[in-house]
């Protein structure tokens, strides 16, 4: 089950401090990168919640993020809502759609769950791509940023926006961590290890899965809102299955089922991508090779590797989180 080990708390603290300091000193492009990391970090927190802890490996989280981004933009642009209610609505809609997907897919396990979520995600992608209401493949522009001028905060400024993005990552992390501590979170981990037994103990399994998926969907929706506010432009590409695939890559790179690791993964991934793509247009291949190497190494990502090393050295108890499908 999820625990805040000293290592995790330290890593969180370091990442928070590092990103805040960087947000103060970074140049314009650095702030862009920071926002990009924040969006990805929120998405992978959402994904790790269900995939890492619940064993529900989803390939529709990109689409759920897209639901948030589109709902936010449409609510703000077409329905004339202000940013905050539009955000609440967008997150609620993402959660509702995620609940439905989770409920429908609750019986599917392993590769079938992956494929079922892929189908739902692509369905959404195709729908938005062709829908004129959502701007088709040209996307939608003009999403507003949250107006916090009442608090004396101006989010149109890149630096302020970076702080805002970091705050949203913290919020997403908090929601995920609290969910994992809750009865539902405990059940979620239990479901991953032994669904049959939990059912025999009296848990309505589909509802637990769907609720967990809904919370994860809400967090993904938050990532979508942040993405829409960041670029103030959204396009269907956000919803493609490859976005979900990349998010999964980041979760694995960072450390599945550690919640802290995927955030580290998001930082590494975005920085690495920019570093490599500035050297060669063939950076996909290099990212692919790194991914293969990480998965083949059998370590649970970068953070999992560090955890295992420290656990081995201090001879404290073994990390109890195993690879998601060790028992699959």
């Amino acid at each position, binding site marked *: 089950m999820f625990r805040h080990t000293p290592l995790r708390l330290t890593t969180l603290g370091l990442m928070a401090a590092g990103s805040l300091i960087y947000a103060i000193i970074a140049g314009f492009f650095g702030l862009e990168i920071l926002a990009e990391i924040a969006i990805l970090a929120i998405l992978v927190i959402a994904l790790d919640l269900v995939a890492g802890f619940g064993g529900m490996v989803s390939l529709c989280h990109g689409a759920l993020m897209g639901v948030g981004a589109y709902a936010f933009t449409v609510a703000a642009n077409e329905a004339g809502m202000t940013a905050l209610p539009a955000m609440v609505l967008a997150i609620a809609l993402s959660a509702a759609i995620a609940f439905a997907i989770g409920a429908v897919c609750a019986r599917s396990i392993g590769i079938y769950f992956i494929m079922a979520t892929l189908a739902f995600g692509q369905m959404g992608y195709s729908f938005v791509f062709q829908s004129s209401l959502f701007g088709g493949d040209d996307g939608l522009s003009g999403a507003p940023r949250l107006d916090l001028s009442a608090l004396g905060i101006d989010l149109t400024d890149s630096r302020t926006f970076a702080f805002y993005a970091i705050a949203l990552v913290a919020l997403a992390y908090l929601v995920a961590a609290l969910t994992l501590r809750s*009865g539902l979170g*405990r059940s979620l981990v*239990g479901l991953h*290890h*032994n669904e049959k037994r939990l059912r025999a103990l*009296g848990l*309505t399994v589909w509802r637990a899965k769907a609720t967990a998926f809904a919370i994860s969907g809400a967090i993904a929706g938050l990532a979508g809102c942040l993405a829409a506010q960041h670029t103030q432009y959204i396009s269907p590409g956000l919803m493609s299955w490859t976005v979900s695939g990349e998010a999964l890559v980041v979760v694995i790179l960072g450390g599945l089922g550690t919640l802290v690791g995927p955030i580290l993964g998001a930082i590494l991934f975005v920085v690495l991508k920019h570093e490599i793509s500035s050297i060669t247009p063939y950076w996909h291949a290099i990212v692919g090779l790194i991914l293969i190497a990480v998965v083949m190494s059998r370590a649970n990502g970068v953070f999992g590797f560090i955890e295992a090393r420290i656990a081995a050295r201090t001879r404290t108890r073994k990390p109890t989180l195993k690879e998601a499908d060790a028992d699959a």
Partner: protein
Amino acid sequence: MLETRALTKSFGAIHVTKGVNLKLEKGERRVILGPNGAGKTTLFNQLVGEITPNSGSIYLDGQDITAMRVADRARLGLSRSYQKNTLFDGLTIRENLGLSAAVALGRGQGLWSDPLQSPEVVETVREVAAQVDLAPYLDASVNAVSYGIRRQLEVGIALATRPKVILMDEPTSGVGPEMSKGFHRLLKALPRDLTVLIIEHDMDLAFDVADTITVLNYGEVVFDGLPEAARSSQLLKDIYLGAWEDA
């Protein structure tokens, strides 16, 4: 407390349970005996709803639960353990018991607090740990403890739901005679108002624990009565031991 009427299940032409009538009173401890393939585990699976009978009905505390789903039956106070360990690997023993207690308390879907730290769950975990002798191992990971301990946890998880009726499927299967005896001592110490149905193949231990005994053979009840009567029943010896030796 728990009753079946003409419970029948067949896979194709093979009857795995055939017209089984059982009636357990509150607080009764009954042992089911029978050779391999007699339909004991299949009977359990039907009782808790993991498989659906072809005909017949099941009553829990007077309520017809035949068509009810697994989780709903569990919430009415029906709990079971499995012949093959069905634990939450990777979690600690405390977490295993706590999860069970939390779910049984209806807090498995809760969002607002950590049920594992709630007083009721903590208390249940403490009590169950005492009942099945797990107190020293509470913070050990399931992966790190011996098979015997895991067997005890298997029953502990079922007990942690605070059931009215508990079904135990060969709780001492694969465990050495010494540990087995100790385990039966623990069973006997369970509260008297708990209704217990146990599948057991060790006859001596069965007679030690049971108030009443049911013998299944080829899916049919061939004996239903007191242990003394069972012990002296020639029929039982023929069928049970005969089949046993064949097996």
